[in-house]
């Protein structure tokens, strides 16, 4: 039996490494295997190197690195089929929830947001990441792997942005707009350039690029435009009208009050109205001061339309909805209840005079809507007081 010499062992080991087998365990296995074959089959008269050249092709079809690649595949992708299955089911789940959520949303049924969010999460956190992993395994072209994975990454960013938007989490706009802008202005050109030179996929590339560009641009335009400017100005106009109406009524009330100031019940009613009115004013100023980062005095003089962060819901949540203390939702509700109790004793057969606290938008809303609600309450206060004063004056 032939004995493998040390220098031959070194030669084989170097060759195994040079041919791309990097896993040390695998190098040892192959070396031992080759040594065994040499010892079994090589005769003393044979040339070792010539035999080695003849023996080597037994180990592979194209190159020795195949064994390394196959080992990597088995070790890394042992769950390959499970991954493909998960991809399929997460895709179905994402589509199902997003579609059903959209239908629910249209018909204003409960659970719409939860379903859309679930769909978005399946899509952004399961489906797309799996697509990246599988593309890296499947795609043969190196550029394709990177380009397509980049696209999926942008998909993850954009769809996460949409989920963030629905959940009112911070940075939603940056994620959505950033993802779509990069998609339209960077990804589609890269996709196009990397594939257009290959005749076999040229037609597909053109069609896909046009579709992606068109849909991406539409989405970009839709998000970037935001809601209608007419609607926004109409909202401001409503606010201005309510505000000036409230002010006019307040002036009229103070004139009327002078005429009937000797009536105790009038004074009690006026005090209750003023108390709630002032509380609303103070809460408004506090929220504006926090939102704008200015003092209470400064906040008092900032008109509604000049408040910069009217669409902010974080301030509402932190400083009002879930807050404690004098400017909280709880405190406002308590004061409204007190006022209602008094009004009920003055107008026992007119329940419409009470402030319908349950119909107010005091929760899960943005600053503009909350401030609008405040002005509406103040208008109602002034209106009710005006009615009562007129009644007392007419009676006397």
């Amino acid at each position, binding site marked *: 039996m032939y004995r*493998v010499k*040390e220098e031959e*062992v*070194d030669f084989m*080991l170097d060759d195994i490494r040079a041919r791309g087998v990097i*896993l040390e*365990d*695998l190098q*040892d*296995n*192959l*070396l*031992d*295997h080759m*040594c*065994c*074959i040499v010892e079994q089959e090589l005769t003393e008269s044979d040339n070792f190197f010539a035999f080695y050249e003849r023996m080597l092709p*037994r*180990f*592979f*079809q194209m190159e020795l690195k*195949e*064994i390394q690649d*196959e*080992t990597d*595949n*088995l*070790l890394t992708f*042992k769950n390959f089929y499970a991954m493909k299955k998960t991809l399929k089911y997460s895709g179905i789940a994402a589509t199902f929830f997003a579609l059903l959520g959209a239908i629910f949303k249209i018909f204003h049924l409960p659970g719409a947001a939860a379903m859309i969010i679930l769909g978005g999460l399946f899509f952004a956190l399961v489906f797309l990441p799996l697509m990246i992993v599988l593309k890296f395994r499947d795609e043969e072209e190196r550029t394709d792997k990177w380009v397509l994975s980049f696209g999926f990454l942008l998909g993850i960013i954009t769809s996460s942005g949409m989920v963030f938007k629905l959940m009112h989490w911070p940075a939603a706009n940056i994620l959505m707009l950033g993802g779509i802008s990069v998609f339209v202005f960077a990804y589609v050109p890269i996709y196009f350039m990397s594939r257009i030179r290959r005749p076999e996929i040229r037609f597909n590339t053109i069609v896909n690029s046009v579709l992606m560009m068109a849909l991406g641009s539409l989405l970009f335009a839709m998000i970037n435009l935001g809601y209608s400017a007419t609607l926004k100005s109409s909202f401001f106009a409503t606010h201005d009208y309510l505000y000036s109406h409230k002010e006019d009524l307040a002036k009229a009330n103070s004139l009327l009050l002078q005429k009937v100031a000797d009536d105790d019940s009038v004074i009690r009613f006026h005090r209750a109205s003023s108390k709630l009115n002032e509380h609303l004013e103070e809460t408004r100023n506090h929220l504006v001061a926090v939102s704008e980062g200015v003092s209470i005095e400064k906040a008092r003089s900032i008109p509604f339309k000049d408040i910069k962060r009217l669409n902010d819901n974080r301030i509402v949540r932190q400083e009002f909805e879930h807050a404690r203390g004098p400017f909280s939702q709880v405190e406002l509700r308590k004061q409204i209840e007190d006022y209602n109790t008094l009004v009920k004793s003055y107008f026992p057969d007119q329940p419409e005079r009470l402030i319908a606290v349950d119909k107010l938008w005091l929760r899960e809303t943005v600053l503009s809507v909350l401030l609008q609600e405040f002005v509406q309450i103040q208008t109602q206060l002034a209106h009710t007081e005006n009615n009562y004063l007129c009644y007392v004056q007419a009676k006397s």
Partner: protein
Amino acid sequence: MYLCLMYTSELIKGTLKTIVLELLKKQGRMYGYEITQKVKELTAGKIQITEGALYPTLHALEKNGELETEKEYMGKRVRKYYKLTEQGKNTATERVNEFADFIETMRFLLDLQTKSGHVQG
């Protein structure tokens, strides 16, 4: 692709793990070359496991905890002996039973004669 000379690769694919596990169950511990030679000997050369298929499978089985290894140093080279873990022993039994059941099903499905092992004319 990797496995044998006599049978089509589609037929053999998926049985390599069963072969390796069962062989190690019977033999105790073996190294790579020994496994290829043993299979060749037992099947009279009908099934020849290639190196390209064997080592990736051995590594995968080891990573899954089915096999454990012992290293022996022979001068400048290292020989890795593989043997079954407890988990591997159970897997071997399961795999063999599953395969036996599969053969039974195929025999019934393809209407093969039990004794001669040939397809009926």
